[in-house]
């Protein structure tokens, strides 16, 4: 009898090994078809008219000239819209036979604008409106008293700008209404759920007739769960024309309206004893997430057991596109605020930063984990050989420094269902309404099913990306690998046990005496009594065998199939040219735990990716808004910069894979590695140049300004 518990290390043939992702060849050869690549017969291209104003009233929208343009098949306008609240807000749309014709027609739409006052500044406390947006407050212990008693009080201002998701495949879909069904090729993080509620927006179109397909998607990072307004528009235009409609956001629109990460700024005071123990954390936090939504305010981050805490958090409303979940929502900003303030405290104490962090991990939820991970990270980067107190005293303009941060994330698997089918010809198929964002989800499912059935990976066909498959959760919050590995393990185990029941009489033993291994079904304590996988499956006769498995997170956690809560430590090594202000990455190391790893290769890729995305937001990324016009000044990829291959330095990753970690079961990994880089790099820059550069991204102008203010430049 096969059991669902994860096999012990010595029994694993695939789980935990470095395995190439199944869809690697399709992606590397251009054969993988993304939403943007779906070309249907009679396809129309849809282009949007968006607001050029950050705040305006709409008198009227006249689409008649656009509708009369050659090749234009249909126009759409938002009948209910009478006020826009950010630049880029969707107003109207055109569907035409070519992209060029659609673009040209959009320019013929006339809108009567009545501009209204706008406010896009998020960094200045003068835009607090406490009457309208009540500050959030939290008090623990007695901060005033603790600060008064502290041996050292460190005080600073910190912040990190709004950044965007900048998915390389923009948001969008191809919608095709045909014979009473709606086919939706959506670039989505939630195949099973993305169409939920869409039917209502289409005059009560039957929800069960919406067919979602997403085999490949070009990045989401938290911003692609909903059908969105563009989903409604493309479906409505398809209904109107009877033709398929492709609507993918233009790059500028993508950057302005398809999601961003809230900013966070803070004034923080930290009190500590002479030995480094932190006793008080006092923070005033603010930031924006557009007109609505929350801001990252849960400081102190990770060091939640600091005995005396106080915070006041204020949300600034801005006429900007709304925030969406951005990989590890709020954690990177909270890490920047908290770890910067703590590193400044170490500097004020003239104490080594690593020693200070090791001392204070006692104030976290998992002291042993952080202690071990920080030690390993320090070893990997040669901390003791390179370390110095704040301010590199080496003569010359190039200053080098180290900085660190630790982080946490939940990552418990989501609800997921999976069907595993074993066919008489020996083929195996796993089906679930999940999606592979590039994390290696397809491969993880294949590995789990193949391992369970004792087969090679290529024997399993993994079918994901359609909402007609068993319901599986959206990919957000590092929940996918936990969810799908448990549901596919459950399904494969159930299918295997059903096959055992059929095979057992032939082998003359009870079904619970059998195991599947190495392409055979055999008696556990007498391996020579066996039958090949193919012959066993032939005994099914003419019918395939399908079993459904489910991940129920609470139960699965109790069974140690999955768990929640990870730690991680990162250390950065940077050089700063104090004449130009340019920060260069020398090296960065990440130590990360995530329970039982299914595919070590794609798991490591998640961590490398987290480091690189983190380097990008630490050094380059910022949605720059002009207070006068209310517009985003860098809504393109020249001036909204992503790190290139030469910007990232040398990267090293260490995954915690000892038994104690593996015994916890599977835990998600997407979010945690992206949390610490901003904080670690900011601390490394401070360690190099001797002063805090308060705001991220750490652009040359900010570095120079901080050096001038700090007196480091004459």
């Amino acid at each position, binding site marked *: 009898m096969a059991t669902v518990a994860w096999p012990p290390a010595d029994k694993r043939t695939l789980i935990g090994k470095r395995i190439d992702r199944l869809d690697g060849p399709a992606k590397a*050869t*251009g054969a*993988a078809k993304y939403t943007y690549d779906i070309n249907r017969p009679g396809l129309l291209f849809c282009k949007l008219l968006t607001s050029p104003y950050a705040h305006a009233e709409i008198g009227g929208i006249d689409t008649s000239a656009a509708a009369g343009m050659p090749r234009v098949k249909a126009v759409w306008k938002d009948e209910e819209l009478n006020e826009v609240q950010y630049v880029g807000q969707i107003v109207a749309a055109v569907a035409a036979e070519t992209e060029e014709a659609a673009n040209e027609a959009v320019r013929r739409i006339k809108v009567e604008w009545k501009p209204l006052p706008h406010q896009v500044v998020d960094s200045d406390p003068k835009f607090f409106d406490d009457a309208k947006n009540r500050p959030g407050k939290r008090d623990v212990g007695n901060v005033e008293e603790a600060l008064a008693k502290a041996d050292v009080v460190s005080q600073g201002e910190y912040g990190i700008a709004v950044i965007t998701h900048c998915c390389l495949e923009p948001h969008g879909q191809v919608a095709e209404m045909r014979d009473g069904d709606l086919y939706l090729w959506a670039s989505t993080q939630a195949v099973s759920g993305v169409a939920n509620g869409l039917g209502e927006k289409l005059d009560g179109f039957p929800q069960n007739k919406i067919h979602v397909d997403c085999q490949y998607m*070009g*990045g989401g990072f938290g911003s692609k769960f909903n059908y969105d307004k563009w989903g409604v528009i493309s479906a409505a235009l398809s209904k109107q024309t009877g033709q398929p409609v492709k609507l993918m956001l233009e*790059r500028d629109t993508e950057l302005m309206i398809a999601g961003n990460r809230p900013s966070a700024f803070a004034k923080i005071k930290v009190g500590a004893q002479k030995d480094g123990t932190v006793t008080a954390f006092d923070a005033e936090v603010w930031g924006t997430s557009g007109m609505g939504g929350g801001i990252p305010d849960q400081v102190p981050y990770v060091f939640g057991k600091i005995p005396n805490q106080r915070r006041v958090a204020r949300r600034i409303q801005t006429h900007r596109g709304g925030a969406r979940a951005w990989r590890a929502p709020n954690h990177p900003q909270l890490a920047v605020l908290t770890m910067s303030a703590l590193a400044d405290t170490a500097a004020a104490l003239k104490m080594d930063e690593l020693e200070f962090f090791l001392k204070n991990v006692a104030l976290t939820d998992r002291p042993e984990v952080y202690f071990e991970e920080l030690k390993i990270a320090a070893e990997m980067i040669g901390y003791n050989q390179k370390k110095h107190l704040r301010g590199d005293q080496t003569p010359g303009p190039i200053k080098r420094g180290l900085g660190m941060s630790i982080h946490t994330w939940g990552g418990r698997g989501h609800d997921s269902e999976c069907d595993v089918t074993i066919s008489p010809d020996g083929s195996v198929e796993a089906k679930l309404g999940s999606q592979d964002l*590039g994390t290696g989800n397809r491969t993880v499912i294949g590995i789990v099913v193949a391992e369970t059935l004792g087969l090679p990976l290529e024997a399993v066909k993994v079918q994901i990306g359609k909402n007609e498959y068993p319901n599986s959760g959206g990919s957000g919050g590092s929940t996918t690998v936990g969810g799908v590995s448990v549901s596919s393990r459950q399904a494969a185990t159930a299918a295997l046990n059903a096959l055992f029941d059929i095979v057992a009489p032939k082998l003359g033993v009870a079904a619970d005496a059998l195991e599947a291994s190495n392409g055979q079904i055999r008696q556990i304590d007498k391996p020579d009594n066996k039958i090949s996988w193919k012959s066993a499956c032939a005994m099914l006769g003419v019918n395939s065998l399908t079993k459904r498995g489910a991940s129920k997170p609470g139960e699965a956690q109790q069974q140690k199939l999955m768990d929640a809560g990870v730690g991680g430590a990162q250390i950065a090594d940077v050089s700063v040219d104090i004449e130009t202000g340019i920060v260069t990455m020398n090296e960065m190391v990440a130590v990360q735990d995530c329970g039982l790893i299914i595919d070590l290769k794609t798991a490591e*890729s998640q961590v490398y990716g987290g480091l*690189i995305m983190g380097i990008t937001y630490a050094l380059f990324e910022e949605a720059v808004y002009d207070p006068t016009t209310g517009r985003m000044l860098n809504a393109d990829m020249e001036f909204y910069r992503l790190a290139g291959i030469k910007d990232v330095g040398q*990267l090293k990753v260490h995954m915690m894979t000892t038994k104690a970690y593996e015994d916890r079961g599977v835990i998600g990994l997407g979010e945690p590695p992206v949390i610490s880089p901003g904080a670690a790099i900011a601390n490394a820059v401070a360690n190099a140049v001797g002063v805090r550069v308060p705001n991220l991204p750490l652009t040359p102008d900010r570095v120079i300004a901080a050096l001038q203010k700090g007196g480091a430049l004459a």
Partner: protein
Amino acid sequence: MTDKRDSSNTSGLSRRGFLKGIGVGTVASGLMSPAGLKNAVAKDANVVGPEEIPVTLKINGKSRTLNVEPRVTLLDALRNRLDLTGAKKVCDRGTCGACTVIVDGHPVYSCSMLAVEAEGREITTVEGLGTPVQMNEVQKAFVHHDAQQCGFCTPGFVVASTAFVRKHPNATLEQVRQGLGGNLCRCGTYAGMMLAVVDAAKAKGGV
């Protein structure tokens, strides 16, 4: 290709041809009305469009004839008219390299070249470099080193890397860092990419 054009010319709209068409240069054109300029151009150089014209493109060794407006980019012609969707549209303004194709041996941003400009040239897209069952050395190395996540930037990187290793068969890590500076990835796959391209360069120039 229409009979109005000299098929030996690589594009029919070369810069030299254009300058010749507008006559003696900037002094004269400065005095000319837009209509006069158009007439001057029309006398000598080829003026095409705005309506669709037939264009023959040599892509992955095959000639493909299609009708496009002259304003259509090579990228849009590949993706929208020929269903060659390996080259991706990401920034659409020559920044990110996701649309990279090889034109006459050189990597080119196909979003920044008109389809009519590409006429008569040898175009190789990612589809021309290998298939999932028969990958080139760069593609194999990308898979082996997991130099891809969502994969949307991957075809552009694969094409750029293939052109790069052909030119730098013994490329060092530093050369790879400089040589692939024209492409961008969002998921953060550069670590695997560096290893992949160095490996591919070692393996017979990546082809």
